[in-house]
């Protein structure tokens, strides 16, 4: 029992200790001119889908949940967001070559269709980000239209 108590105290101290380690927050005030919504005419419905289900990780502006203030959550999230942005950053979409935009559109389409994106670990805490059949369809129609015009 005494050993357990010591372990618990050590864990508690470690937990408290890591709270002081800072992380960089992924937030900006101004929407860049290269943002997807700035370079293309995105219908309202699709615009909302992108912003609620994709932008938290795939842009330079995350709407952080309260538990992000707790370590090690912030670390893990920071890693995820950096990885996601390297793959696809909607804020920079307009700076991609036409070829790359096309590839990204195709990949978004198939990832959403296959249910790979948005990630299950994300929708678990963000129920509103989960895409309904209707939303998927709207996204598909718009992206297909974009692919034809590019």
């Amino acid at each position, binding site marked *: 029992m005494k050993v357990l108590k010591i372990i*618990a105290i050590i864990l508690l101290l470690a*937990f408290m200790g890591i709270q002081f380690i800072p992380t960089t927050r992924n937030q900006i005030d101004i929407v860049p001119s290269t943002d997807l919504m700035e370079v293309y005419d995105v219908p309202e419905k699709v615009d909302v889908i992108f912003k609620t289900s994709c932008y938290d990780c795939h842009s330079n502006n995350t709407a952080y949940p309260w538990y992000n203030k707790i370590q*090690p959550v912030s670390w*893990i999230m920071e890693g995820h967001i950096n990885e996601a942005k390297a793959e696809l950053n909607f804020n920079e979409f307009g700076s991609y070559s036409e*070829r790359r935009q096309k*590839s990204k559109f*195709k990949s978004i389409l198939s990832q959403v269709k296959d249910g790979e994106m948005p990630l299950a670990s994300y929708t678990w805490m963000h129920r509103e980000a989960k895409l309904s059949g209707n939303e998927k369809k709207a996204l598909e129609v718009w992206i297909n239209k974009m692919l034809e015009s590019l």
Partner: protein
Amino acid sequence: MKKFKITMGMVAIGLTLLTVTSCKDTKKSDEHMEMDQNEMNHDGNENMEMDQNGMQNDEMMNRDQKTSKATAVLNSYLELKNALVADNTEVAATAGKTLFEDLGKFDQSSIAGAQKQEVIDIIEDAREHAEHISENSGKMDHQREHFEMLSKDVEDLIAITGTDRVLYKTFCPMYNEGKGGIWLSETKEIKNPYLGGKMMKCGEIQEEIK
């Protein structure tokens, strides 16, 4: 004292919960780090081999002279294509990695004017596809999706650089829910990299590229 125990218990439960929920994610980032390390090791080894081995150096120079014809890129592209024909996802991943490296070494210096930017765009896009293919061993559908986009890149690349061999641009009308997809093949005989063993013979030659 009792109160203390309860608090400790709650803290312990909280900690366990945190660990459980973050477990999956941590594993993922670990994998990623491992991969990065592998990549680094690989590059390191390569450099050492090059320094130690004269033969290898000659081979590299030979390769460089031919990059204007995209020789190395075509070699690894076709290797990847044949792995997908054989439904072999691991070999496809390895070939994807080689292709990723070969694309990185591609010499753009001889290409001038407006075509230069296009080649840069092609290489950037193609590298991303090759990287995805290399990282998705076991997910052949995903590898094939990227292979479809990659094939278009390679086709456009050799339209600019020329090719050192005869290639057949082949079209599979069934792929991707009837949207179809093209690939480049070194043989006239049709071996479909999108459908593999399921429908090996599906496809038609659209163009002979010399």
